[in-house]
């Protein structure tokens, strides 16, 4: 993916400007066309990519700007998921989704359309790309299950759909895919099931895999509180290459779990609090990376924000990414024995 030590990346979403929110709402209320909205998305994504490049981010994303929220974009594409009402008061609201019969076999159906999104991003940046999608456990949590005797089977069927899509993404050139499980922290007892489903998603897809688990970020608020020890040891069985976690808001005590369990996957280290508009300094970022370096080898760390930047104003998001990049660069230079750049 990238040979850079302590590479910087994003979790996925980027600042959603107020005018884009209004355009999304206008679309849901029938005031603008799908064509116009798509043109707006294309323009916004190009700008988001440019921001990340200007900030010096090594691995960029499309900012997930086409997605109303972390769930619906996928649910409305999976055949067999019923969405009785497509009108929304707030574009960011979740659809009321239901499944009344087992989902049809993914192999027999066209994909979810994520490949087009990836290709558009590929066209507009030369940097490595992270492409993310919601994980099967979280998607299933937003579906009223009336079609499966065991809800576990719904989770696994969704995983099969995502696996089908991941294969197509890999074929289209995707090299880093990320599975987001924003609801898992609220259901600690479900970690084994979530891991089983993740392993179905990644099966046979030869890319670098990241798994992101946070404490929720709807409307820039945590949905749960707690500690990451609920993930261990079950998470050790996940066939992923990175575990992307939230620390900047919660503190770094849980980093010791990586010392205790010595997992084979890298740590995606959250160093930017996405729930606060206060911009971190590069020194703060460097200190946060240092906390992780005390227990994790630098080659095993990827530097990223705690979660998506969706709720931050654009200028704040950009400033935070700049600080993240500068902080990571300073630690990188120090670890390599090179001159440490001065913070500005």
């Amino acid at each position, binding site marked *: 993916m990238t040979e850079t030590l302590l590479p910087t990346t994003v979790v996925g979403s980027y600042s959603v400007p107020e005018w884009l929110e*209004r355009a999304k709402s206008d679309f849901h209320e029938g005031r603008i066309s799908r064509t116009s909205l798509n043109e707006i998305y294309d323009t916004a994504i190009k700008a988001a990519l440019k921001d990340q490049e200007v900030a010096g981010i090594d691995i960029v994303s499309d900012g997930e700007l086409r997605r109303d929220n972390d769930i619906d974009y996928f649910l409305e594409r999976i055949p067999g998921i019923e969405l009785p009402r497509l009108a929304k008061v707030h574009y960011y609201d979740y659809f009321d989704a239901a499944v009344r019969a087992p989902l049809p076999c993914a192999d027999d159906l066209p994909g979810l359309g994520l490949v087009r999104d990836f290709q558009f991003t590929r066209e507009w940046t030369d940097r490595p790309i992270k492409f993310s999608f919601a994980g099967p456990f979280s998607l299933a949590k937003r579906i009223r299950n009336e079609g499966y005797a065991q809800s576990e089977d719904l989770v696994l069927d969704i995983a099969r759909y995502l696996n089908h899509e991941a294969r197509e993404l890999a074929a289209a050139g995707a090299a880093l895919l990320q599975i987001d499980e924003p609801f898992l922290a609220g259901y600690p007892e479900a970690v084994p099931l979530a891991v089983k489903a993740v392993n179905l998603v990644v099966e046979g897809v030869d890319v670098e895999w990241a798994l992101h688990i946070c404490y929720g970020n709807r*409307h820039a608020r945590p949905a749960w509180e707690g500690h990451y020890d609920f993930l261990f040891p079950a998470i050790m069985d996940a066939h992923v290459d990175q575990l992307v976690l939230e620390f900047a808001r919660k503190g770094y005590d849980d980093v010791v779990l990586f010392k205790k369990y010595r997992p084979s996957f890298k740590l995606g280290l959250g160093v930017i609090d996405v729930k606060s508009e206060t911009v971190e300094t590069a020194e703060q970022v460097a200190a946060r990376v240092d906390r992780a370096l005390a227990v994790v080898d630098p080659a095993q760390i990827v530097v990223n924000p705690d979660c998506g930047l969706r709720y931050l104003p654009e200028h704040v998001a950009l400033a935070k990414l700049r600080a993240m990049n500068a902080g990571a660069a300073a630690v990188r230079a120090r670890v390599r024995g090179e001159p440490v750049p001065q913070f500005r």
Partner: protein
Amino acid sequence: MLVELRPTERLRKGNGKALVQSVLGSILHAVGDETLDLEKLRIVCDWVQYKNSFREPVEIRPILNGSSVELRLEIGVDLRRATGEQHDINVEMARALARRDVSDRHYLEPWSRTTASLIWSFNALYWKALGLWEAVTGRPYEQALPGGESDARNAAGARDSITRLFATWDGLAERRALPDQLHVLEIGVGNGNQARVWLDTFLEIDRETGRDYYRRLHYLMGDYSPHLLDVARAQVRHHEDHTSTIVLDATKPSNTLGFLKYKTFFVYISNVYDNLPTDEIARIDGHLFQVETRAFLPAGPAAAIAEDIGASPEDLPDLVARLLRLGPELLAETEPRRFPGAHAAVRFWMKVWEALGLEERYVALPPLDEYQFAPGISGEVLRPLMEANGDLRMHVSNGAAASFVDTLPLLHPHGVLECHDIFVTSLAGYGTGFRGPGKYEGSVVNWVNGNVLAALGGRRGFDVTFRSFAFRAGSNITTMTAEVRE
């Protein structure tokens, strides 16, 4: 000409029809003698239910564009006082028209948006110096509330909220996700009755159920008035190990209570939002206007007030400004000949307050994104409300919006904000009744725009719902609840 009759329900009763005919007849007769362009005239009839308000029975309000050119003229009539023993509509109308040429009012401030008016300085002074005000009136402020008491005393309401809170905590405890300390916050504690009833009920339920949540409970009481906090603290002395008090500005609670971010399970707010500064904006003929106001003293009362203290009416603006800046005690110290003690200064304050009026005009509203709605909140949030509801004039509840938005981050992911207040929950309500400002003792009261709060909460992921206060029949009070959606 456009005639808008707002209190339609009230006018259906009694002699409403005759009243309207009489008032409109008088107005038409009066304007017929003037060189007014009838095509540009709006007549708006309200029923101002407050015993004391800032309005005279007839007011003339120019509707101006950006360069102060009069686009229209609005004649505002308070039907309740238009034809009573004390007022003659013909005389009131003639006075209002005469003021267009030469005003006999003593203005205390220049034109400004209503949130910047000195009525809010009076309001703040009332809560700061409440102890002195009560000493002079000889009655606690709660007696000024309609019905003579707050709904905060209601134990059934407390039991309802506590029962729901226990259910939430039970669920979290099952998942070992219940924090050690359980924070509850009350903003605007009044005299502490709510806190006492709530805590007594809490303890009772805790003993009944054996949950042992009381041991972990901490109830924080916040208020702008140090005097009220002292009174409230005395009320809950038997819960002193579980209570604290803190002086706070209700429009920015996070400034004081940032340590409670994401930790508060229950926030209770009663009759606070209706007492916070608000602007009014209006849509007239499809265009947006802001209501600007300037406070004044009518000539008659101004002369009487001035004479009482050996001053001239021209001295009053300066004396009022000093009263608001210094408070009654220091004013008395600096003007001992006029005010031989703090109580004399309070009596001056009361007379000025009773006579205080607000003159109004409409000016073009700046683009909504440039309208300073509340800290960190763009006026754009008002656009859907203003665009979807035709011509209307409404409060935007700036202070309530600021307070509400700044309180939401304090809530735990499973927390609930409950608010008892007078809400307008449908914008149509602004076309059918007078929603303020009125005067309650020394404070200002306006109905709160529930639609604005619902829109703000919705954008922040909260479901905001309204229901009539269930525990006292015939109450104007509405219960607003905000909790995380999904």
